[in-house]
């Protein structure tokens, strides 16, 4: 397990839990990062307010890789603009592309995402596109220069888990980049299941932000993700569709 690293854009990470920072108090971020064991934290870019006393960057522990998203973008052009602004903030060149035209289900616009990925990868960004799990689109994202793909498990913020499980499974099987399950993961058991399937990492935000005790839930997710990863590397045992298979010897019974 020592050498089991997650490689994104040439950088090696030990943690496979990508932590969101939205919808909870800045004061909880440090504890969340620590208890999650997270090495990557997502952020959003918004208009700055004057005279703001607190800045999120002061609450994120040093050494954490920042992954700004392009939320608010409605097409590739807007995503590229937000990504460039994020990079100009001076915290690295990782970017999570998030393009939505639909405000009810917040589903990603896959075709605009491919366009933005191509432009930003050419500009030297490390691009992690949030996507609907479609194999053809995932292949287009690979060709466009993505560093990973981030298929959704369920609609953003829904805590509904691996609704798209079968299709994420296809991406894991067919795509050589890290497949990071993003969005919709609500419980540690769901994160564990994604990892057992061979997902490279899991991203969660709302699951923690809506938990009773945020740092404790961050810790629960960390353990579940580690367990799922270990199970994947160990090779999950086979399933019997019918019948049973005793774990006990089938000889030496105390009968005639």
């Amino acid at each position, binding site marked *: 397990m020592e050498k089991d690293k997650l490689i994104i854009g040439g950088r090696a990470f030990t943690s496979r839990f990508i932590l*969101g*920072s*939205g*919808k*909870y108090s*800045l004061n909880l*971020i440090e504890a969340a990062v620590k208890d999650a064991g997270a090495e990557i934290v*997502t*952020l*959003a*870019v*918004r*208009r*700055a307010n*004057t*005279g*703001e006393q607190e*800045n*999120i*960057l002061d609450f994120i522990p040093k050494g954490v890789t*920042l992954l*700004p*998203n392009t*939320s608010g973008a409605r097409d590739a052009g807007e995503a590229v*603009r937000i990504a*460039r*602004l*994020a990079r*100009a*903030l*001076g*915290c690295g060149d990782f970017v999570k592309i998030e393009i939505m035209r639909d405000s009810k289900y917040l589903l990603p616009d896959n075709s605009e995402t491919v366009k933005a990925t191509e432009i930003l990868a050419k500009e030297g960004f490390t691009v992690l596109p949030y996507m609907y799990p479609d194999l053809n689109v995932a292949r287009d994202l690979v060709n466009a220069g993505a560093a990973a793909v981030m298929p959704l498990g369920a609609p*953003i*913020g829904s805590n509904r888990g691996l609704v798209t499980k079968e299709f994420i499974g296809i991406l894991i099987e067919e795509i050589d980049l890290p497949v990071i399950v993003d*969005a919709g993961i609500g419980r540690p058991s769901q994160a564990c299941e994604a990892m057992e399937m061979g997902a490279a990492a899991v*991203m969660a*935000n*709302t699951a923690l932000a809506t938990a009773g005790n945020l740092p404790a839930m961050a810790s629960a997710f960390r353990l579940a993700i580690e367990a799922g990863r270990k199970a994947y590397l160990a090779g999950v045992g086979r399933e019997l569709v019918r019948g049973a298979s005793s774990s006990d010897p089938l000889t030496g019974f105390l009968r005639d």
Partner: protein
Amino acid sequence: MVKINGKNLDAAKKTVAEYLTDAGFDPLRVAVERNGEIVPRALYDKTRLCDGDVVEIVGFVGGG
């Protein structure tokens, strides 16, 4: 007038550095876009805002 983050403000003739300081922004915590182009931090001192400019000043916030 200069349109900054959607509001028309009397900031013409100020440099970006002067505007950020006057308005209370920490220059190391924001990124500035002027008429669709990023203004690099090294040019805040030399970039003067003009009437009709459209400026966006952004920073990081919590997000997924």
